[in-house]
């Protein structure tokens, strides 16, 4: 599974998101490649799931990806719920 985390520059919130998602998936025993990127580099990337913040919704939602939105990139508990729900929906 390919997951891409996105933020404006590709090195702030997307990187923190990537690290937290890596940790969560490792704990759950789910294998996935998680990559952080900036908004400009997203188009063309192959991703089963894109994860970004609510704030960037308008810039990501019409790109044809499955997108999960988070309020906080550092709240791991909330992030875990959102990610596991999103992954569960992918499998349906």
């Amino acid at each position, binding site marked *: 599974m390919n997951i891409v985390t996105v933020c404006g*520059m590709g090195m*702030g919130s997307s*990187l*923190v998101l990537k690290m937290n998602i890596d940790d969560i998936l490792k704990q759950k025993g789910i294998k996935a490649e998680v990559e952080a990127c900036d908004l400009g580099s997203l188009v063309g990337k192959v991703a089963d799931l894109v994860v970004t*913040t609510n704030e960037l919704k308008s810039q990501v939602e019409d790109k044809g990806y499955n997108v999960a939105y988070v309020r906080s*990139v550092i709240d791991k508990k909330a992030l875990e719920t959102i990610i596991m729900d999103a992954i569960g929906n992918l499998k349906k």
Partner: protein
Amino acid sequence: MLGELLTKDTVRLNVKVKNWEEAIRMGGQLLVQEDAVEQSYVEAMVRAVKELGPYIVIAPGFAMPHARAEDGVKKIAMSLLTLESPVAFGNPDNDPVAMVICLAAVDHTTHIKAMRELAVFLNDADKMRQIKSTREVNDILALIQV
């Protein structure tokens, strides 16, 4: 690594700012004083919010202004401000902001270690509570070192 970047020179507590822009400039100025970034980088951090929106408010009450390495970064650096009165950045989810960490990264990989430590730190509710209540830089530095 976080402990090497956040020092008595790059941490300011209970600062007074009128708005988000002043907060970014104040945090950015600490990076300029460290000789870690050019003045142009401070402007780029402000411009990023104006152009891309207040997405740098990445968690409730917490903003992480940054720009690109090519906007004038000389070396990896961070600065931390706590605000006496929280200010709005225009982010409906996470306003108002009480803590600002400005970030200067030379590329997308070298600051990963510092960011990982920062992510763990920000996730630590006890430490975050202490940071909000303390007025001594040394107390904050002790929290960061551990």
